[in-house]
């Protein structure tokens, strides 16, 4: 049964492997896996904080929200890192990625827009995840 599993893995790897990754050598570096494990905790922390924040805003009698779409910039190069960043932003309550343009800009829907400036919004939305994602994927 293990031999059959190895054969199936080989077939799917040969057939679809060049779709999956473009830099196979990067997968061998153990430091990346260490940062990947760290990223789970970072993401969990920010998701918890954002949950509490959104719950506070919903339960507050005045409902202090200021929704809008902001444009933020990312320095990440690889497609995988950009996708992970966009999905992390979507997973965090209160912010949601609307679109991802080719030249490194994300359009994010934000429940409480504190600044429409690109630099400032980038610092607040993307800055939490960007450094650690760069260590994982690049």
């Amino acid at each position, binding site marked *: 049964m293990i031999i059959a599993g190895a054969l199936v893995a080989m077939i799917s790897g040969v057939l679809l492997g060049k779709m999956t*990754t473009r830099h196979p050598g990067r997968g061998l570096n153990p430091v990346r896996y260490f940062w990947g494990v760290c990223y789970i905790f970072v993401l969990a922390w920010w998701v918890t904080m954002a949950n509490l924040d959104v719950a506070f805003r919903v339960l507050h009698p005045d409902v202090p929200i200021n929704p809008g779409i902001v444009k933020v910039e990312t320095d990440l190069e690889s497609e995988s890192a950009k996708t992970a960043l966009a999905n992390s932003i979507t997973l965090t309550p209160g912010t949601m990625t609307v679109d991802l343009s080719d030249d490194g800009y994300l359009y994010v829907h934000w429940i409480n827009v504190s600044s429409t400036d690109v630099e400032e919004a980038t610092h607040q939305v993307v800055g939490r995840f960007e450094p650690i994602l760069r260590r994982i994927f690049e």
Partner: protein
Amino acid sequence: MTGMSSIVKTVTRWVSPFIFAFGIYIALTGHLTPGGGFPGGVIIAGCFILLTLAYGKETTFGLFNLESSAVTDSLAALAFLCMGFLGYVFGGGFFNNFIQSGFPGTSFRLLSGGNMPIINLAIGLKVGASLFAVFAYLALFRAIEED
């Protein structure tokens, strides 16, 4: 058809080999667990349909084009028929389970099914290849229409 946004493309890139391996697993262990050749084949077809939707037909045909899907379809059907004839030759009846009589008493293993895993895999590849061919012709047809 150029495909969807880069988020969809990247996620498709990550999950497609796992979907393919899962389809073959469902087909191969059909005699032990729920599943079998038919759902496995449809899952394999679904993997390539996902690739076609996300990346457009050129990239997908670079991996698995229409000729190879036709060849896979025919070869799998032929393998299915050959198992029947081999059962006739060695076991004394059409589709006799001739391999299983060689491994008596090994229940609940992959080999215990005799020729059932082989037939399951053949059916899975056949169903997958033919459904992918239909979908590819649908995609191609629309592309011709737009010219």
